[in-house]
């Protein structure tokens, strides 16, 4: 303790001298903090939490000394305490040492930008006036006193200064604080080093290495992402006109990967935006950088969807770039002034291994003009998994996309970005991971659909998600097609490790049972599109039009006529169309003769889906925007649910009174809530009143108790039940939508 006080006293004068405010405005090149400057430091192994980073923190009890500070290397100007094994510093060394340096600024407005140069062994986080501005060799997320550096630092790296652009907007006139915490990689690490400088620099252009793209768009929120070549501050501005971006979102700190959630957006509204830093706008502020928020969930509006599959060949082939560009141009030519509202990627978005560089080359560099205004929803293909991993959600695929895992865009939470669902207006979308997620399902999946607690997490989630949706249209997409005779063969159990067969046998019965309308996949580098199909889970030779085709026509309203489904909303076992859209950056042919396919083309292209009212139109586009295939799914009017209890009228045992539990104790087809005809004679009369009176105030087990008289199902015949009886007195039971109503016991029982 005494030695510490001595050091503090000796350094105090130097600190005052170094901390003196420069006269006049700051100039380019000026050091606000120089290397070798004197720092206050705390080297006692304590946990300082976060208060120490604030300007007002009292560090008068800390030691002080000139940089370089540290131990173990021999060249330190100030040796800090390493821990209990000092001076050998062999074991039990303190993980974190804290440093603070106050400096003065006269005119913050005169400073365009700052450059922080940081020497750290092993890792460090720097804060300017309490805001994190640099992190080096430390993990992402919260940093505590026990957080270890990410890797060992040795050799030349021990004396390397790492540079960070720091936003000058963090400066204030007068005293400012630069605070740094240095972390060891291990408690046995034998050395530690720290020095830093902070210099006034001219504003340097920040390179935009991934143009802005839209993620996770909901009626009221969005996520904007982009990447910069150097760490920079993060700012999004948005508004209702390109020249009126009144809303500003600044994210503290600097980074290269920028991901900004925006909330409080108005539904069905065009939003303009710009992205950049506090000093520079990198993109936007014009008519091209805008998107339209979707309508509230459940509200049907004309919706256009663009679908591409196996689009990432540009990452490894100039021909792939040419072809992907042509497909994109074809879509843009077709869409004209009516671009898609949303965009689906069917996997293999980045060949060959899905590395970060391949994602940049194969996706982000190919579609910058689309992704700035159209939100993209992805599934992974097999080629993503050379570098990514689904169980741990790690790697470039998961780093590149922000996808809903908590039901934030509608649907049941999946807990993972590997598979998820979302709603867009009156359409429910489901994205599955066919490659790297457990595809387990029950035994005999065709007849044993969705038994509780059986199968992998994805299977069980799919069951729950489909059971929970009430949307007018259901679209499901994943990478490996259940039916194809293109560059892959879904009949061949060895092709693609049997994934196509597994998806067909295990997952299609669930989709059939819940009335999915359209299934999209890629993998084969061709376009294939089925007729209206159901209940077919075998190889192509087992297909029988009589058994499996609900409509063998082409589905084209100008040809054989649209595919008809009886009701708007989920229509179980009413058939689906299966489409392979895998030719968005290359074609690979194949026999293209799967019997369920109505159209098979070895042609580059993409799919545009238009949903409007009770119609879903899909058009396969060639590279000149010409329509090479068109089909329509037309659905009947919605099924009513008059009492809004979630049970549709044909299935509801009380049509006009909400009883989601459907309790019907006497099994006569009328739910308890609307059935005061306790004796089953077809009328609510004094005879029924007598039964009510004898059961009044009884509970299960009491003499006279009858569950059928307990209208509200609360376990006691009470005042509420009497009140309901009065309403029904002298009327008929019901009304009920059940076919068996009024014929006790219900024949179905």
């Amino acid at each position, binding site marked *: 303790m005494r030695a510490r006080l001595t050091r503090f006293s000796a350094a105090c004068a130097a600190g005052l001298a170094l901390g003196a405010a420069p006269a006049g405005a700051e100039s380019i090149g000026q050091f606000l903090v120089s290397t070798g400057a004197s720092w206050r430091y705390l080297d006692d192994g304590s946990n300082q939490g976060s208060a120490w980073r604030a300007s007002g923190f009292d560090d008068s009890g800390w030691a002080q000394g000139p940089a370089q500070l540290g131990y173990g290397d021999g060249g330190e100007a100030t040796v800090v305490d390493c821990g209990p094994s000092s001076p050998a510093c062999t074991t039990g060394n303190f993980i974190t040492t804290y440093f603070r340096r106050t400096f003065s600024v006269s005119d913050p407005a005169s400073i365009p930008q700052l450059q922080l140069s940081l020497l750290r062994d092993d890792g460090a986080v720097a804060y300017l006036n309490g805001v994190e501005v640099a992190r080096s060799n430390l993990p992402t997320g919260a940093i505590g006193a026990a957080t270890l550096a990410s890797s060992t630092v040795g050799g030349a790296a021990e004396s390397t200064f790492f540079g960070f652009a720091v936003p000058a907007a963090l400066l204030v006139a007068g005293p400012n604080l630069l605070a740094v915490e240095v972390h060891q990689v291990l408690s046995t690490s034998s050395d530690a080093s720290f020095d830093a400088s902070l210099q006034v620099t001219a504003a340097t252009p920040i390179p935009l290495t991934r143009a802005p793209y839209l993620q996770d768009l909901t009626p009221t929120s969005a996520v904007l992402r982009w990447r910069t070549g150097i760490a920079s501050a993060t700012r999004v501005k948005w508004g209702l006109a390109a020249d009126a971006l009144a809303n500003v979102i600044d994210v503290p700190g600097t980074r290269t990967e920028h991901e900004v959630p925006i909330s409080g957006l108005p539904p069905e509204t065009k939003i303009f935006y710009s992205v950049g830093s506090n000093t520079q706008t990198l993109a936007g502020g014009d008519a091209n950088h805008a998107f339209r928020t979707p309508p509230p969930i459940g509200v049907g509006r004309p919706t256009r969807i663009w679908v591409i599959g196996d689009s990432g060949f540009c990452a490894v082939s100039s021909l792939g770039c040419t072809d992907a560009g042509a497909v994109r141009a074809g879509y843009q030519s077709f869409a004209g002034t009516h671009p898609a509202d949303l965009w689906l990627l069917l996997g293999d978005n980045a060949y060959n291994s899905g590395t970060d560089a391949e994602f940049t080359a194969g996706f982000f560099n190919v579609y910058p003009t689309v992704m700035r205004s159209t939100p993209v929803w992805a599934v992974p293909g097999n080629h993503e998994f050379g570098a990514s991993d689904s169980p*741990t959600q790690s790697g470039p695929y998961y780093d590149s996309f922000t996808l809903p895992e908590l039901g934030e865009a509608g649907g049941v939470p*999946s807990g993972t970005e590997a598979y998820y669902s979302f709603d867009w207006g009156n359409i429910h979308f489901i994205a599955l991971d066919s490659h790297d997620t457990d595809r387990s399902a029950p035994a005999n999946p065709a007849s044993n*659909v969705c038994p509780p607690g059986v199968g992998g*997490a994805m299977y069980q989630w799919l*069951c729950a998600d489909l059971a929970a*949706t009430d949307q007018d249209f259901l679209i499901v997409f994943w990478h490996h097609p259940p039916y194809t005779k293109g*560059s*892959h063969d879904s009949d061949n159990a060895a*092709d693609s490790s049997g994934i196509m067969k597994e998806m067909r046998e295990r997952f299609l019965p669930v989709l059939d049972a819940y009335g999915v309308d359209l299934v999209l996949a890629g993998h084969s580098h061709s376009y294939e599109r089925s007729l209206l199909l159901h209940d077919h889970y075998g190889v192509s030779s087992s297909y029988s039009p009589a058994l499996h085709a609900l409509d063998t026509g082409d589905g084209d309203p100008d040809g054989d006529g649209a595919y008809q489904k009886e009701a708007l909303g989920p229509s179980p076992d009413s058939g689906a169309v299966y489409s392979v859209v895998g030719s968005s950056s290359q074609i690979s042919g194949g026999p293209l003769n799967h019997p369920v396919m109505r159209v098979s083309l070895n042609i580059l292209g993409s799919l545009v889906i238009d949903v409007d009212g009770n119609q879903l139109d899909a058009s396969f586009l060639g590279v000149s925007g010409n329509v090479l295939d068109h089909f329509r799914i037309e659905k009947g009017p919605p099924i009513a649910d008059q009492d809004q209890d979630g049970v549709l009228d044909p299935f509801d045992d009380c049509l006009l009174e909400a009883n989601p539990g459907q309790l019907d104790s006497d099994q006569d087809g009328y739910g308890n809530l609307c059935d005061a005809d306790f004796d089953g004679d077809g009328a609510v009369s004094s005879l029924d009143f007598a039964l009510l009176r004898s059961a009044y105030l009884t509970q299960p087990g009491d003499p006279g108790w009858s569950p059928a008289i307990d209208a509200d199902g609360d376990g006691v015949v009470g005042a509420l039940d009497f009140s309901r009886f009065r309403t029904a007195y002298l009327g008929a039971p019901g009304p009920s939508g*059940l076919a068996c109503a009024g014929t006790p016991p219900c024949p179905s029982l």
Partner: protein
Amino acid sequence: MPSSAPALLALAGLAGALLALPAAAHESEGEALARLELALAVAPRDAELWRRRAALERARGEIDLSGADLERACALGLAPALAEQERGALARAAGRPADAERHLRRARELAPDNAATLAAHAEALAGLGRWREAADAYARAIRLAPQAGPDLHLARARALAAGGDATLGEALRALDEAEAELGPIPALVQEGALLELRAGRSDAALARLGRLPPPTRRRERWLVQRAEILERAGRPEQAIAEYAAALASIEALAPARRSTPAAVTLAARAREGIGRLSRPAEARAR
């Protein structure tokens, strides 16, 4: 840089270009193999190419060929941890689970903080019935993963539950931890309900199911599941009501939908449930 370096770089570039050639018509693993062979002819000392060929051969069931290529990759400097992981995958594909576990254990020793390696090792341990070790490995993988998904949490809970009744409570706590992190994910909730039932706690099972939002359509599966739990909980009247509601829902379907295998199976379950519960109590007890 040695004088032959430019030539080597050119060869490597050619190998990359060969790999990037457009896939041939009807490309399968066989065609992909052929393309790799072309690339290997140009860059025969590229360990990664040999590893990729070994992986393709493994997928085709060509175990011996895959093993030879993998060892070639190792001799050419494939990273030891990756080599052990690939050996583990190969042993697994060859039906040698104990060997797979041994290699994956080595991989884990070489890369102790790699969540994917840990998960693979956990799976191998589970395959050998070494439940406790598997559960611990899953737990560590979950801690180290950037964002562990439901698969890992579910596998951990199932490993603990497979370990016997002594670890049932631990399995349920693992599911609770997962739910706290991920929310009421269907598989986690359902698994919890099944484990509660196994422990004889029907109310707790129903309470877990109550965390899931009830479906608005096709309620019959949900109703049958609730009915079965109520039946096991000794609440026959409520169970019958739920079974009956499920049957009514199925009966209300159009004939074509009512006659699908899934609907027929479900209706049979409901009818059997009602049948069981309609018998006198003594008969039920027998």
